[in-house]
């Protein structure tokens, strides 16, 4: 009885899904799929490597310090970093006094202890990075209705991670001359147009990004360590910095991982040897099954 009901149920589901298959196949054969420019001309992130990549990678603190300068001088005009506190900057190799001095360069909203009125005051190490806008409405109003996203987790929140951020920052192009895999965009899609207020960037999923090219000239920021601030250099440094803001505990994670794996490997070898010894008496010579 169970089997008869089972076979009937199975046939019903099979029939229903095969009808779906037939209908879909028919409509796929009779209608042509619409090809879109973003499907065709979207570019994968560039193959760029960072010192913190891989199981042995570590933060390059000099690079993170440079990236912090780029964030402060350029990105912070529009983007917040709300999950990062100034005290966290100690990870970049700054002393306590230096962290205090860096924090004091920022203004955060506070309360006047005498009057209770809201005021702006210099930040302290315990404060979090302030948002450039008082609220989302103000952020949208100032940016053509596109709210600049918080950058704390940006490299984790996008497929492609830091290389994607790097590619995006260096990837602004003129759509008139852009080609991908030897095919020119305007030849394939002659009526392709970048909407007003948007900027063409092939690394962005729909090719048109609301953010104007943020890094435009060499020397836009000044590095204290004398590194030349080319666009590529600034992009790479800020991508590394945003990898750190996304996961400040990464060094700890990798450094803990190796001893843990070493210990478990050792324990596994011991477990294997004891298993072998315990089974030696009852285990016959190898035979099938």
């Amino acid at each position, binding site marked *: 009885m169970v089997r008869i009901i089972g076979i009937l149920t199975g046939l019903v589901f099979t029939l229903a899904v095969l009808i779906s298959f037939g209908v879909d196949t028919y409509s796929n054969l009779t209608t042509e799929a619409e090809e879109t420019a973003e499907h065709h001309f979207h570019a994968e992130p560039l193959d760029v490597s960072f010192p913190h990549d891989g199981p042995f990678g570590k933060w390059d603190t000099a690079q993170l310090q440079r990236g912090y300068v780029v964030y402060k001088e350029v990105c912070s005009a529009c983007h917040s970093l709300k999950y990062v506190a100034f005290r966290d900057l100690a990870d970049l190799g700054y002393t306590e006094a230096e962290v205090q001095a860096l924090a004091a360069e920022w203004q955060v909203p506070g309360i006047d202890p005498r009057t209770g009125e809201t005021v702006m005051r210099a930040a302290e190490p315990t404060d979090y990075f302030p948002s450039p806008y008082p609220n989302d409405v103000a952020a949208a109003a100032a940016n053509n209705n596109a709210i600049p996203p918080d950058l704390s987790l940006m490299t984790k*929140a996008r497929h492609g991670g830091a290389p994607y951020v790097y590619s995006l920052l260096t990837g602004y192009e003129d759509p008139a001359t852009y080609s991908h895999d030897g095919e020119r965009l305007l030849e394939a899609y002659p009526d392709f147009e970048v909407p007003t207020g948007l900027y063409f960037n092939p690394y962005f999923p729909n090719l048109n990004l609301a953010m104007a090219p943020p890094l435009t000239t060499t020397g836009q920021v000044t590095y204290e360590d004398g590194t030349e601030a080319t666009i590529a250099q600034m992009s790479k440094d800020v991508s590394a910095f945003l990898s750190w803001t996304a996961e400040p505990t990464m060094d700890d994670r990798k450094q803990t991982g190796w001893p843990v794996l070493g210990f478990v490997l050792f324990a596994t070898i011991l*477990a294997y040897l004891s*298993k072998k010894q315990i089974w030696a008496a009852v285990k016959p010579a190898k035979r099938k099954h």
Partner: protein
Amino acid sequence: MSFAWARQYEPKNGFTKWVDEKLPLPRLVYNAVGAGYPVPRNLNYMWNFGVLAGFALLLQIVTGVILAMHYAANAEVAFASTEHIMRDVNWGWLMRYAHANGASFFFVVIYLHIFRGLFYSSYKAPREMIWLLGVVIFLLVMATAFMGYVLPWGQMSFWGAKVITGLFGAIPLVGESIQVWLLGGFAPDNAALNRFFSLHFLLPFVTAGVVILHIWALHIPGSSNPTGVEVKSESDTVPFHPYYTAKDGFGLGIFLLAYFAMVFFLPNFLGHADNYIEANPLATPANIVPEWYFWPFYAILRAFTFDFILPAKLWGVLAMFASILLWFFLPWLDKSPVRSGHYRPLFRKFFWFGLIPCILVLGYCGGAHLSPITIALSQIATAYYFLHFLVILPIISSVEKPEPLPYSITDAVLGSDKKPVLGENTTPAV
């Protein structure tokens, strides 16, 4: 129950005698996973995954209870509290990565455990109850995993919750009311997040309870084995301890190596980038996908695209639930007296060249971007999935001519001149 030759627990000193009289817990453990449990001597490494699944459950409970000490189940702050755990709580990043990857590894071992059950037909008499309880455990773990994924309140959390609770909306007439009732609102919000957290905390303990029943039911007939021939005499078995504790210890080591490699070096590999974006009801992600362990079922859900008598969405929901619920009927769908796939030539062919590729295809299509190709593939694979379990399996179990079975487990292990006897394994266990 036990086999007549099972070793008996003997308290050695006054204290253990006293405990044994008042509450024979050491005796219970001795009989359950100690020297008092005789186990077939020929178990291969596929028999490691039950113990590993139990370990994974324990791991999830320990890391989860610690995470709950720091997590705040409120839609306003849930995402920020998760980041607080990652950044400010001592070893919080380790607890969270261990828990998130622990869920994936839990499913890896559960799937291998189910795979073992399917290939060696462990669900057959006299072990139907173990199998039924196992399916219940699987359903509980799926529900728990789904609700746990909602808790960080990222984009995939929110939209996953919306899609899955939206499935109840497919029920005719009362569907939408049920959906609102389940969510405590028209969309996932604070009410939904709080009840998901509450249930996510509760269900693992319910699961642990059913696991105890699962193991209890296992100890009535005793463990199955790769030949599928029942235990006949003492020489067919070895005591669980030290033989299988040692073997499971080695298996646990391998499991932990793979697990820690992921936790420490690729902690976000199995996750989805969008879940690091805070939930936003106004921005739909380009591709809403569940975690990898739900992909095969998600592919079945999306395979139905045509309103054939019933709405396509309802077909998808019914098929998705049916694809798991039909496992409850396996012991009665597969009537072949032979258990092990090793001795079933026809079953083996359909298993390796039908079912396994079918599930892999479903898994791939469930995670991929929707395209005409992936939809067509998942439709064919869905059709095969239902045909395999509900039509092919019952039919081959009556037409197949099994290969000769060994006389006994000892025979299979040590070899003998005795002629193999077909059907010996149908003798009930002593």
